[in-house]
């Protein structure tokens, strides 16, 4: 589905240049849920933006279904890490969410409003459609951004730390929401997170990036069965093992 071939990225030039991404080669299979974890500043967001076609790598390339990605490809939506800046302050929550659907012709407004309301309910913001982003808390803004991404009904979803600002309960709800949508729609999801628990709970495979200039240090296969359950899955010994392994790797200790 998606293929990253020795992708690298250098910001700036001359003396100030920063080699953000070293040499990343990775395949994302159709319909899979892949998570990227790595230390802060290692280039996760950069990689995701290159996949999204928002940026061109300095070398290497990204292909989607065999075609090189040069501009944001159709059917792919990227959710920004800076969620609070990515919302439009002059639109209320409903218009923000509907904005992603706007591109598709043939969707009539009533229908759009209705499905928008559904997405808001899914992320726990029912009845907040008339509020403006700045009237919401940080976690609520992040959820609006999630609803907007889902409403665009993508086939590929790129999520950059989408749950960083929400509490445990909401996060658990959102995990299951994303898994549900992923399964029902047959999406391909690439998630960036620094929460190892989350990575293990959600994904099929986990790619671990090394420090800047980043390379893929290891790709873990996640043997946990589906469907996942917030309690049962976490109770699996496999869960703890994988989680421990990842953490150890991240914290730089041998497991």
């Amino acid at each position, binding site marked *: 589905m998606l293929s990253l071939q020795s992708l690298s990225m250098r910001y700036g030039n001359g003396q100030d240049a920063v080699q953000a991404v070293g040499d990343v080669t990775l395949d994302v299979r159709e319909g899979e849920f892949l998570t990227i974890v790595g230390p802060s500043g290692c280039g996760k967001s950069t990689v995701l*933006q290159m996949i*999204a*076609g*928002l940026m061109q790598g300095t070398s290497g390339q990204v292909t989607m279904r065999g075609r090189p990605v040069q*501009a*944001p490809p*159709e059917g*792919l*939506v*990227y959710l*920004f890490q*800076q969620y609070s*800046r*990515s919302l*439009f*302050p*002059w*639109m209320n929550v409903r218009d923000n969410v509907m*904005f*992603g659907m*706007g*591109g598709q012709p043939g969707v009539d407004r009533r229908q759009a409003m209705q499905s928008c309301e559904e997405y808001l309910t899914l992320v726990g913001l029912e009845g907040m459609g008339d509020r*403006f982003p*700045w*009237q919401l808390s940080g976690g609520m803004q992040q959820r609006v951004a999630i609803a907007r991404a889902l409403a*665009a009904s993508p086939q590929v979803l790129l999520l950059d730390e989408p749950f960083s600002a929400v509490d445990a309960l909401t996060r658990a709800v959102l995990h299951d929401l994303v898994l549900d949508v992923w399964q029902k729609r047959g999406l391909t999801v690439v998630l960036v997170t620094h929460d190892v628990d989350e990575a293990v709970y959600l994904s099929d495979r986990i790619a671990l990036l090394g420090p800047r200039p980043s390379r893929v240090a290891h790709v873990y296969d996640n043997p946990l069965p589906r469907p996942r359950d917030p309690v049962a899955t976490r109770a699996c010994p496999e869960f703890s093992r994988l989680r421990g392994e990842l953490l150890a790797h991240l914290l730089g200790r041998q497991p």
Partner: protein
Amino acid sequence: MKALAMWRSTAWTGWALVVGLCVLWQLSVVQGWVQSENWPALSAVLAKIWEGFVSGEWLSVFGPSIVRMLSGYALGCALGVMLGMLVANSRWAKRLLGTSIALLRPLPVPAIIPPLILLLGVDDALKITVIAFGVFFPVFMSAYAGVLAVDPVHKQVLRTFRIPGWIALFKVKLPTALPYIFSGMRISLSLALVLTVIAEMTAGNDGVGYYIVSMQYAMRAADMYAAVILLSLLGYVLNRLFVVLESRWLRWSRQLEERK
């Protein structure tokens, strides 16, 4: 409600300052600090203002000017916003028009009047064009700057959702540019008034501009100042109206007001 409360609390200081200056004006004449045919007593000016209202003279003086001004202003603003956004959005428009607009910008109105007379005659068409010409540039420049000020994260949102250009224009670029555009339009509003007067001074037989020149040459300084004062009051009222409309349009920035 809130505006009213604020008005009660502090707005009087502004008027107090104006009244103070007016008293100073009156004293300067009564006490003989300034002696000149061109410096009438404020009382004489106020008397003339009152007289003009009673006789209905002001209506016939200001009426045509206001119509002209609003037409020129509307035309200039519309063109300014459209071209400003076009040039900021389209590489081709910028390539083709950028240099020409930059060259036309510093031209003073008197220099463009003679060739314009050839094209447009000397009547309202000319005056409205002159007003629109002056109004155009501030609005154009602010619309242009406003589009460039779009948040880079917003631009990327537009790209990742593959929003078509024209939707992006109306739903994202225009709202971002709006505060800039309004600032340009506010500047242009008083500019429009100024240009109306200048255009009417050049040719024609009605309007405030004509009135002011003829009063000056008829040695009726009090009448001239009466018109000037009314003109500035008119400008004040127009600006107030504009601010009210602006705050309606910019409802989303209410957040900022509340914070203060």
